[in-house]
């Protein structure tokens, strides 16, 4: 047992233990088919949901013909929300094209960088969302309280306080989610990548 060749022989003795897997090919193909169908359904649901929202929004604008400031305000808000949602979806994905990725050290380093980049992109999208909400709400308020400076000031202050609170809450939630889910993975990938680098004593 001291010879490493016998250790390899022991390792390969697992063949008999998994004979049941001979019948597994059809099950595997079924799994892949179901996976592809589930992905397709999810994509249809996402695209369908966004399309319905856009059509509904366009229909509401065309039917009620609101004042230009309100139209602009609502459009900016919708755009801000859409960009944020898109970024949010993509930020949750780890690299999907494992089949086209490089060796493990490179893959782990790229995946860690990708997670960090996506988190930064999500923060920018979130800042844009708050900017869009602030601009949109102010444009709508400007239209609603036109001609009454006192009421305008009151509404603007109320909207600013509300948005500031929402921005703070959202930012904190975003950071917490990253720390809870992505950060451990990111650190793990970095650690894995680092641990494959040669130590000084190796060279």
């Amino acid at each position, binding site marked *: 047992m*001291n010879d490493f060749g016998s250790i390899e022989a022991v*390792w390969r003795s697992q063949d008999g233990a998994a004979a049941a897997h001979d019948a*597994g090919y059809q099950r595997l193909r079924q799994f*892949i088919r179901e996976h592809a169908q589930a992905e397709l359904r999810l994509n249809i649901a996402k695209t369908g949901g966004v399309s319905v929202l856009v059509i509904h929004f366009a229909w509401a604008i065309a039917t009620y013909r609101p004042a230009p400031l309100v139209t602009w305000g609502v459009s900016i808000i919708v755009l801000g929300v859409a960009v944020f949602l898109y970024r949010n979806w993509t930020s949750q994905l780890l690299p999907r094209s494992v089949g086209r990725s490089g060796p493990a050290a490179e893959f782990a380093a790229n995946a860690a960088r990708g997670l960090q980049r996506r988190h930064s992109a999500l923060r920018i999208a979130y800042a844009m969302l708050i900017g869009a909400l602030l601009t949109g709400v102010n444009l709508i308020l400007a239209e609603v309280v036109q001609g009454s400076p006192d009421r305008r000031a009151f509404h603007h202050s109320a909207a600013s306080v509300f948005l500031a609170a929402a921005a703070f809450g959202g930012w904190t939630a975003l950071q917490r989610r990253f720390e809870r889910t992505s950060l451990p993975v990111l650190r793990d990938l970095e650690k894995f990548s680092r641990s494959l680098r040669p130590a000084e004593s190796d*060279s």
Partner: protein
Amino acid sequence: MTAAEKEHRFAEIYRDNRMRLIRFCRGFLGGDGDADDLFQEIMLQVWRGLDGFEHRSQASTWLYRIAVNSALLYRHRLRRRGTPGPADEELPAQSPSPLARAEWSEQLDALLRAIATLPPPDRLLAALLLEGFTYKEMAEILGISTNHAGVRVSRLRQKLEKAIRGKET
């Protein structure tokens, strides 16, 4: 590649590499019950990547790159779900399933336990080493230099031999 060609190629890969990949999964996961899940995940990624395989590297290198990278992602998914996966630090040895325990030899059990105590990069290296990959192939799969692979493998051999010898005495 036509759909029929893809299906044929995939079936070939499955037939030729099934056992090696299952052993690889068991080695990486420490002999617990998730090896089948990981194997399915690897084959799903193989299916997805088959169209893009351009034969720039050997088929086995390409396949094991997918296996190693899928194993990394699988491990992270387990951790995100809160399921304890193979950890970075030394693990208490995980036991094989009752069925596997009945079928596997005592020596194999000792070997799997020894591998389960290794950190993930060494566990991957051990699985590749035991499958008979050369230093050059291991280096290509893991993305390290051939010399570095040699140094690591040499240390790993000593660790495994010592662990198994320890069980025998």
